[in-house]
């Protein structure tokens, strides 16, 4: 049938056979619909690429150096001429990226065009004009319906050829995106097999991309997750101006208002819905516009239920989905019940950079400061990850400072400088037990950032540098002159070319 005409050249033997087979099935059994599906399969498969990446992570234990390079692989698909979409985690910390199209063994070098670690998406550009010539890029579709069938394409482990698995959409909800570890967006659960190597591959329905395969849950059988079309489309809109700005964050901590007594206490009318505001994170978008005990009844005029959900194209989703789709700088309208009246507030969405410390870090190098063998770093998620299973291995005061203190303090997020490591030398070896303590002061001056430390050491007047560490008010003292003398010796002995990255 003419329908197979797009398959180009006898060299594409497997595709040709598959196409002929499809025609055969069509002819015998199902007819034109199956032939159409086969054509779509082939068109989709031609747009899919395997991605081989040489990754090299920063070393958060020895922050002046990098870890050993490793080889990883993932999947991707063409969304434009020589433009590929994949997951951020496939290409993060990449030193070299090589892509290959399905049925084309030629390697092409690719470069990251845009990368969004918060939504685990990236686009690559392939400089070679021969790449993807004649291939029709895939288009992004819409949110699929529950229980509808989807196909996942990619290059999972266990073989070198393209793989296609089928399943159904089993759940649509907000989920944590594991790449950053701290962002939640819309995600779709499917029983279509998603395995290592599938990452970045498209999830297809009716010939369109309705998702990007990205993570699985090893505790559950036959469960995979993909990034749905609204998140993909938002990413593409974001980068359309030539840069990725990321998500804004309302910064509102809410509680449900399912309890009738609570609703009565707040003076809500019987038919009023909404959620109560427990807290606003200082510096987030809603700071100064929304206050504790406000009841948010609607977002952009979409009513919010007492459990915090909205009706989103027939799905019950977290109300923040409305804000999720907006770009930085766009206005959000919240309808609030405050002091017995309904009012509207509008405020622009802003990026909440203070929360970056909660995210895993990629494509960046750790900040550090080494002085006389004392290695100072800032507390963030990567620092905690250097403990391995940090819930079990990290000191509890670090977990408190990172995960809880910003919620319990009116100040919100605060920086913490950690004595991360001691490079043993006669001048400091007796302090080995003080590793992983928080630096409170240097010579009586509060320390919040590495820059404070650098300034404090430079401007110190006395004969000693005196650090106070917590918890427990530990005292660490170094003779100023002797420390200055030991400093270069230690750097040389431990192979550190630069004593700081600030």
């Amino acid at each position, binding site marked *: 049938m003419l329908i197979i005409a797009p398959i180009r050249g006898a060299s594409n033997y497997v595709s040709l056979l598959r196409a002929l087979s499809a025609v055969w099935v069509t002819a015998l059994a199902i007819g034109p619909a199956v032939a159409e599906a086969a054509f779509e399969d082939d068109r989709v498969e031609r747009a899919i690429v395997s991605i081989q990446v040489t990754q090299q992570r920063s070393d958060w234990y020895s922050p002046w150096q990098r870890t050993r390079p490793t080889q990883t692989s993932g999947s991707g698909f063409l969304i434009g001429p020589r433009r590929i979409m994949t997951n951020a985690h496939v290409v993060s910390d990449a030193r070299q990226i090589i892509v290959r199209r399905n049925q084309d063994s030629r390697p092409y070098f690719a470069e990251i065009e845009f990368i969004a670690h918060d939504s685990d998406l990236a686009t690559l550009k392939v400089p070679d004009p021969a790449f993807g010539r004649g291939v029709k890029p895939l288009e992004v579709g819409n949110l699929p319906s529950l229980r509808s069938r989807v196909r996942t394409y990619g290059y999972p482990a266990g073989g070198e050829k393209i793989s296609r698995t089928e399943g159904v959409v089993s759940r649509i909800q907000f989920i944590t995106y594991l790449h950053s570890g701290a962002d939640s967006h819309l995600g779709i659960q499917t029983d279509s097999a998603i395995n290592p190597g599938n990452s970045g591959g498209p999830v297809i329905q009716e010939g369109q991309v309705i998702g990007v395969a990205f993570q699985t849950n090893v505790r559950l059988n036959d469960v995979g997750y993909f990034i749905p079309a609204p998140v993909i489309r938002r990413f593409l809109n974001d980068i359309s101006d030539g840069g990725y700005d990321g998500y804004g964050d309302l910064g509102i*901590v809410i*509680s*449900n*208002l*399912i*309890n*009738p*007594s*609570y609703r*009565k*206490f707040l003076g809500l009318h019987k038919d009023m819905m909404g959620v*109560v505001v*427990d*807290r606003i994170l200082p510096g987030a978008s809603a700071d100064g516009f929304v206050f504790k005990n406000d009841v948010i009844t609607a977002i952009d005029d979409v009513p919010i239920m*007492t459990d915090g959900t909205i009706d989103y194209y027939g799905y019950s989703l977290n109300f923040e989905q409305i804000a999720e789709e907006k770009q930085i700088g766009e206005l959000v309208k919240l309808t609030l019940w405050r002091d017995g009246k309904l009012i509207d507030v509008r405020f622009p969405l802003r990026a909440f950079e203070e929360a970056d410390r909660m995210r895993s870090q990629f494509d960046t190098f750790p900040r550090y400061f080494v002085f006389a063998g004392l290695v100072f770093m800032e507390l963030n998620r990567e620092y905690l990850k250097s403990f391995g299973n940090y*819930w*079990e291995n990290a000191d*509890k*005061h670090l*977990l*408190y400072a990172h*995960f*809880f203190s910003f*919620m*319990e303090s009116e100040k919100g997020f605060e920086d913490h400088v950690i004595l991360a490591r001691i490079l043993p030398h006669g*001048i*400091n070896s*007796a*302090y080995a*037990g003080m590793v992983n303590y928080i630096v409170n002061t240097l010579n009586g001056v509060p320390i919040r950032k590495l820059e404070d430390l650098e300034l404090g050491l430079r401007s110190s007047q006395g004969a*000693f540098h*005196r650090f106070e560490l917590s*918890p*427990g*008010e*530990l*005292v*660490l*003292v*170094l*003779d100023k002159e*002797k*420390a200055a003398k030991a400093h270069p010796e230690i750097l040389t002995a431990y192979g550190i070319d630069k004593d700081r990255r600030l």
Partner: protein
Amino acid sequence: MNPAARLCVALLAASVICAWPALGQDQPEPSGIVSLTVTSQPYDPLLPWNKIAEQTLRGNAVVVKGRKLITTADLVKNANLLEVRKFGRYPDFPARAVLVDYDLNLALLEVTDPRFWSDLRPLPLADRPVLLGRFTINRWRANGRFEEGTGEVVDYLVSNSPYGLMEYPILRGTTAMTGLGWAEVLTSQGNLIGLISSHAKGQIEAINSDLLQLLLLAASSPQYTGFAHRGFAWQRLNQTHLREFFELDNSATGVLIRHVFPGGTGSLELRPLDILHTIDGYDIDPEGRIEHPTYGPLLFTMAINQSLAPRIPVVLQRNGQKMRLSLRRSRFAADDYRIPPPLFDRPVDYEVFAGLVLQELTVGYLRAWGNDWRNKAPARLVIEYTLNRLRKSESAAEKVVIISRVLRDPSNLGYEDVANAIVRETNGHAIASLSDFRKAIRSPIDGYHQIDLMPGQGRERLIFEDAKLAANNARVRQRYGIPEK
């Protein structure tokens, strides 16, 4: 290993052919060691009005002077019934704990039936701890046979007691025997040198004879209320620059007092940045060790419980001046802790309020998550324990009140997910004890009760109508079978 598992190990070990010699018929059976069977039934830390299923534990006790038996507190905790048996044969005699010191992990028992004491004689206490070499491990098995094995001393280490903050030297040793940890009796040359308190992977820990002696002495004193605790945190001064900074000469003594906390020995007399040079006549080296005449080098904190004298002399340096002081020996009673150690032999206080189960946080509660509770229990509670288990003020009543769980009821609809949440305020009053909570709920605000929770643990406020409270409480009690107090 949890008690049930340890019992299983003990029973299993009893049912197999022992690799260690058992006494034959021609050997005299020990007259200073008896077997102890304990029926124990603790309260359920998660539903504190319930007791969990009873379990039977078997261990050992030693005959001491004054017709008393000594064993570990761990073995007799939460006991409903204590029974002792001599020579491994019928009959069993009921026993009663007359003194249980969980800090020392020791208990004294008495048996009132005079028939029990015939044929028994006290096992003599060793004059001095055995510092090196082999010892004999003695125990009664469940099958009525007496068993001896051997072990070897590794060292003595100043360590915290399992249920408190008292610091004392613990005997550490090795053995090939298995299923230990139930007050097996260590002897050397026929003298009692210790009771095994724990056992894992061939390593044992034992309460040594000095402490047994100390308990016997203390028990005879009418003033005895328990042993002392350290009321200060300290830091080594083993770094040259640090010593120079504090203008210390190189006389090789002195540790730094970092801070003091309410209660405990030294809390009244010591100040932050004091340099402590000697304690009870011992020089403290810059790493915090004293040269003990019996044990050799040990952490100086053991000197706090060397004797029962009410005060301990110290020499310290404050603002460059040396001075002599005496520290009042004092202790944290269980109720003095902000987060108390496990509380045995008594029910845990609780309040059920519209289906919310409120308790004061204890280590016993955290231990409901098993031996690995530091990693498995709710993170925020473990953090609170790690950072703030001692009270911050002089108020002994200062505690951490938590909502441990919500018993689902129409009155708490929407609050079901609240669990292990720290209560910060109720009706505008700060909450630092269940007593505070009980007072606060007498004063609803405009007909409502407001319970504010520590942020970061889910929802931050719970609201209840006062007018419906009595009916709601009654319904919850009836539905969930909660007894009236």
